[in-house]
């Protein structure tokens, strides 16, 4: 019988299928842990006198609430609050006591949980991966079944390496055609979310397919899968192919040599069989996509950068426009920004930093604009510095920080002030997400950096050196309107 990528992974990890009384018992290959959603789970283990069942399948890092400024001369780091420091200290203690590997301050691999998993090669095709974090779907880019869980479930996995799970439905999102020049993975996923709706994929695992997806590099695929949750999906995934294998080959925790080639054959066989059944299917054409920005307070409130903001169709949209201080009827181009954030598990990898740097090279960010560039991990930071990207950012007037979630979740003191407008490469534009009263527009690294230079929302295609200086690149829909 033909099976989907999801079916194959689910079936291979079902310790017990669902019965009339209980959901399936699903085995978890890799459990990623961070400081914010784990302390109460470890406390529950302690209360019951339990140990972590598989420390070798558990990897922890510091990312959510930690400062991104370097330590001072005495080696001290300035935490946002005493409680934040305490929480980090708690994770260090919990990991030490349970024998869990922690990529702490001294680790050369430390970084955002969804950036370091793939970098270390612990994220592999065919795996089940969970983390107490909704952006865990990022790892689905490798053909893994990866999803976010709450703290009670973190405790279940720590104690049993298993989860009780209802089998989700499947949704295939096929994006045909080629991405037009200057259209990035972030634009693909924002357009997809806008079409599906913020809750449109609830109860489903999305498999992304089609030419535009296959042509993405691994970092682009991670950006796409990362935001599956913003359409409500349980997970997002992409079938492994040669691009996946090339990325994994030689990674520290991956099989090496002959063992890798043997694993690779099994990984390629994970791809959905021809004729496999999905509960739902949708299809888009990448040729219709353009650089995209959000205008509201949900990730699905997104439009092509040169299209007018739509008139509010309900009370939610009216509230969103009022909160954002944005008028409908005209494009966001020219809308003033105060803060620019390049970072987060969505867009903090080396290719994201290169795209931002390409817009900034030899330029200055606009007067009065604050720009923060936060690499996703220590390896990304080192690579960026080796390429001189840090100097590009600093010369342009941006701040260059150490790895962490930073201004995406604004728990660590990196935040947008009330009433300020930020263009951000992160994943959520919810009210107050980047700080109380902060207004967030989501976009790609190229769009964010181009807007930093202009001081307002700016089309990155017009300033992308690879497209030719001052490129006149109308979006396909504009072309249609002219024709």
């Amino acid at each position, binding site marked *: 019988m033909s099976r989907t990528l999801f079916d194959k992974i689910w079936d291979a990890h079902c310790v017990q299928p669902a019965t009339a*009384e209980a959901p399936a018992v699903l085995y978890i290959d890799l459990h990623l842990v961070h400081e914010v959603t784990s302390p*109460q789970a470890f406390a529950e283990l302690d209360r019951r006198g339990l140990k972590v069942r598989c420390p070798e399948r558990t990897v922890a890092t510091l990312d959510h609430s930690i400062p991104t400024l370097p330590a001072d001369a005495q080696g001290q780091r300035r935490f946002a609050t005493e409680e934040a420091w*305490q929480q980090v200290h708690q994770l260090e203690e919990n990991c030490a006591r349970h024998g869990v590997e922690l990529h702490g301050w001294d680790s050369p691999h430390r970084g955002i949980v969804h950036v370091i998993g793939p970098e270390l090669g612990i994220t592999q095709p065919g795996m089940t991966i969970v983390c107490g974090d909704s952006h865990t779907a990022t790892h689905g880019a490798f053909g893994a079944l990866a999803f976010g869980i709450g*703290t*009670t479930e973190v405790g279940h996995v720590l104690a049993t390496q298993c989860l009780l799970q209802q089998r989700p439905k499947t949704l295939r999102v096929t994006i045909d055609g080629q991405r037009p020049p200057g259209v990035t993975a972030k634009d693909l996923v924002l357009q997809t979310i806008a079409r599906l709706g913020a809750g449109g994929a609830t109860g489903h695992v999305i498999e992304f397919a089609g030419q535009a997806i296959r042509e993405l590099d691994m970092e682009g695929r991670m950006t796409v899968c990362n935001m599956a949750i913003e359409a409500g999906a349980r997970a997002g995934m992409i079938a492994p192919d040669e691009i996946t294998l090339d990325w994994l080959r030689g990674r520290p925790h991956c099989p090496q040599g002959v063992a890798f080639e043997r694993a690779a054959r099994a990984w390629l066989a994970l791809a959905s069989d021809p004729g496999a059944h999905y509960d739902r299917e949708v299809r888009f054409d990448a040729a219709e996509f353009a650089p995209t920005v959000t205008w509201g307070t949900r990730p699905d409130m997104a439009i092509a950068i040169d299209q007018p903001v739509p008139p509010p169709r*309900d009370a*939610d949209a009216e509230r969103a426009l009022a909160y954002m201080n944005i008028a409908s009827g005209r494009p966001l181009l020219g809308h003033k920004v105060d803060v620019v954030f390049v970072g987060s598990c969505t867009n903090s990898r080396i290719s994201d930093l290169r795209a931002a740097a390409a817009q900034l090279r030899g330029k200055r960010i606009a007067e009065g604009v604050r720009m923060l560039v936060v690499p996703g991990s220590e390896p990304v930071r080192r690579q960026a510095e080796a390429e001189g990207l840090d100097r590009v950012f600093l010369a342009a007037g941006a701040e260059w920080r150490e790895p962490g979630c930073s201004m995406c979740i604004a*728990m660590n003191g990196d935040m947008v002030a009330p009433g300020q407008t930020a263009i951000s490469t992160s994943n*959520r534009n919810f009210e107050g997400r980047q700080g*109380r009263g902060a207004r967030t527009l989501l976009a790609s690294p190229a769009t964010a950096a181009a807007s930093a230079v202009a001081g307002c929302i700016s089309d990155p295609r017009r300033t992308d050196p690879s497209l030719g200086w001052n490129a006149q690149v109308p979006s396909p829909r504009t072309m249609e309107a002219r024709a």
Partner: protein
Amino acid sequence: MKPIKTLESTTLVLPESSIDTDQIIPARFLTTTERSGLGRAAFADWRFDEAGAERADCVLNSAAARSAEVLVGGDNFGCGSSREHAVWALMDFGVRAVVSCRLADIFRANALKNGLLAIEVDTDTHRWLLEHPGARVTLDVSAGTLTTETGPECSFALDPFARNCLLEGVDALGWLLARTPEIEAWETQRREAA
């Protein structure tokens, strides 16, 4: 987990759709290492102004809201972050059930594991509930029904395991730990097949 069999209460209505977990509990409250005492943080940026004073125009601050145990939220309630703190905050605030026409997956899973009855109802019933804030409703967990005094009644689905956990206060981790022999056998089988 405290069992919950039936619940009779007035409703607190928040009609906005896609109320995300950043609204339910802003991220700055997530540095806690405890589960308790988060009621003060529930909808903090809706309930309090920047000086920390209660906003008189916020429905969550009304006496009626404080006595309601059933929260009726707009479509896609609980979307966004996986933070279970959202559930802990709502429960500490006094909410014992959340009703919508669509609940975000992770929020619902978190709720049911904490004894917060999180249910989806049909869109007609949902619309009626949104239009009648403060209505008295009865939720019957074993029958799977929502009834109102003056309006519609409907059934809601709950998976049998979640229902049993709610009714009996079953401890899901205890249940999983009891599967240890099966988990070990499965691990051995996989190791040998590799």
